[in-house]
């Protein structure tokens, strides 16, 4: 894998190489999926696909801020579960309570993020340990609170975002609410990360905390803010997931790893300083398309996990290779 002996790519190839590789992988996967199941290419199917990606996409974008800032957030899966269970318990199926339930969830998610951030930055506990700890605390607390079987019910209006859609839309018929939500979230995250001073500071902190500090960036405040963003994204992901799938005692389990996998697939570097929101969208879509394909091909779940593992290692190796060549 030595870059030295490689011939220069021809102009056409070079243009192709300028496209982030995740989109090429996604395109290849989608071609195979459509070849195996032509109905997938219908607009309604594609929208349903986006709807299914929505919770993970929101979660991955939150995770991206933390990763670009140079940390991890392993607690988001447990936070998603906690949100679903809390929403059912407090709301108890009553649509009138939904608004304050959502407010409670938002405050709760922000608080969990704030705690993660402060423990990581001020107490200098590595975020891997901090968020692993809060994952265990949240899982344990949810279990103690519910006794393992959640009570209550999710109100119909709380489930609207993740479950239903706008009817009577030309061409596609029904436009899932999750799709406009995604447009807003992706646009917002892109503006925040790539077009604001805050975003620049997140990159600076992730790229080199010491240099950032010396140039006047409040490293701990920026990093804490990324954790709060991640916590809030988990709340929105929880609401979308509760809408899509309903009440379950382990709604969010495994989502933290899928979110990190998607971010890494998209070329972000663990350790910080690299990553884009648009590529992260590609990472999530690729991961979900892969699951759909493996499902179509009849692979058992353990094999899917292995395939996900191979993919993330390959993506990590490729990113490292590109970093070596450009650096």
């Amino acid at each position, binding site marked *: 894998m030595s870059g030295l002996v490689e011939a220069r790519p021809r102009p056409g190839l070079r243009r192709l190489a300028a496209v982030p590789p995740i989109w090429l992988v996604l395109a290849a996967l989608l071609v195979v999926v459509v070849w195996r199941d032509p109905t997938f290419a*219908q607009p309604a199917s594609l929208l349903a696909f986006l709807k299914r990606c929505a919770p993970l996409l929101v979660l991955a974008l939150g995770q991206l801020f933390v990763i670009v800032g140079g940390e991890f957030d392993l607690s988001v899966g447990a936070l998603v579960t906690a949100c679903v269970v809390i929403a059912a318990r407090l709301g108890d199926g009553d649509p009138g309570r939904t608004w304050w339930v959502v407010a409670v969830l938002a405050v709760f998610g922000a608080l969990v993020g704030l705690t993660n951030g402060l423990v990581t930055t001020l107490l200098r506990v590595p975020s891997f340990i901090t968020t692993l700890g809060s994952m265990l605390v949240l899982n344990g607390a949810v279990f103690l609170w519910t006794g*393992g079987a959640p009570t*209550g019910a999710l109100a119909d209006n709380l489930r609207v975002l993740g479950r239903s859609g706008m009817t009577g839309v030309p061409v596609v018929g029904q436009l899932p609410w999750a799709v406009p939500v995604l447009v807003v979230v992706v646009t917002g995250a892109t503006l925040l990360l790539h077009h604001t001073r805050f975003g620049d500071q997140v990159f600076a902190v992730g790229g080199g905390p010491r240099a950032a500090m010396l140039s006047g960036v409040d490293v701990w405040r920026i990093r804490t803010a990324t954790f709060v963003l991640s916590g809030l994204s988990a709340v929105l992901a929880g609401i979308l997931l509760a809408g899509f799938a309903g009440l379950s005692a382990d709604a969010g389990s495994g989502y933290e790893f899928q979110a990190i996998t998607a971010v890494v697939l998209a070329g972000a570097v663990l350790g910080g300083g690299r990553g884009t929101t648009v590529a992260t969208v590609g990472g999530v879509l690729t991961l979900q398309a892969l699951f759909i394909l493996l499902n179509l091909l009849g692979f058992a779940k353990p094999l899917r996990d292995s395939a996900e593992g191979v993919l993330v290692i390959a993506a990590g190796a490729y990113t490292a290779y590109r970093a070596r060549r450009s650096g």
Partner: protein
Amino acid sequence: MPKRVRTVTAVLAALTLAATGCSSTRPTGGTGASGAPGSAAANSNSTFKFFSQADFDKQMAQRTMSAQGDPSTPWVQMIQPSMVDTAKYAKPGRKWHLCFSNAALDNPWRVTGMTTMKAEVKLHPEIGDFTVVDAGGKDDKQIADLADLAAKGCDAIIVSPNTTSALTPAVERACRTGVPVVVFDRGVTTDCPVSYVHPIGGYAFGAAAAEFIAQRVGKGGKVLALRILPGVDVLENRWAGAKITFDKAGVNVVGVEFNNADPAKAKGIVSDYIQRFPDLAGVWLDAGFASVATVEAFQDAGRKVPPLTGEDQQDFLNLWKKQNLTAFGSVYPVYQWRTGVIAATWILSGRQVPKEWVLPQPTITADNLDRWIDPGMPPLFFSSCGCQQMPGFPQAWGGR
């Protein structure tokens, strides 16, 4: 599965059959002892690895037998019991110390079960102490738990094993300490426990639900089978029972999918199948937790919900009633958690118990649906607990 050894020969025979080129179509029926229905299961290798024709036949027969005892207390009913003498374990005249090694408390079925078991213990004043150790779904932890219990002075040990093969030696060691052992729920491949408590079994569970679906969709009807995960004997048996039934009825099983106990994944899979097979006529599920997600997948796609199966989880039963679904419930009764304690108390008072305590395995149909709904109970409550008359109901089970 105590009878696994007996099936090894049948398995070997069929594997040879498969290896000699009968792979594309169903192996010709009637070869040897295993017969046509058994061969049908050979289509799926992993299913067949767990298949026992003898157990299958026994369960099919037990489904139609009437159980001994009062039907209003099914947790002390028994099917085909062969009683064993327990006089040597009797410990009259003092308080007993009962110990329970639980595999895990990781799903709502087990949570309902554990609550019910604690309530059962309270019904017996002669039980002085009740020690519960939870293995958290880990074989090595449960093996250690059983070893620890040996030093705790238990008068009887109740075990709900995490996995069959890993826990068999540990249960044997527990038996050797001379303390009577009662196993319930999943089994072990040793007959050293004084009593093994379980409902009829997975073949009957899967077959009953499949018969319902097959009747509704007819020959050639397209059915999706939604399973949790491969490789667990109880679940493999449920699927084997269904597969044999479907094959016999000529039902077209268009897909067998694993959802890994994730309702979001289940809903995604069902949505995909609705797209691919607009004439999907039924959904068979090996467990009830994904039934609601399945119903919603059809509703969200603007389609009529086809016949489907589930369990006695309240959210599904309420939805069934409200939407007037065409549905069926196979019940893996929670009341076996009561029977485990009852068996231990019978043994310690020297009363005879069945070596294999086979409990009735009810089914839920449109006719008896109302009896299975407990209003005011949480969505993930299982009404087969047999706990409705116990002290502390419904609050202790999370109800109102």
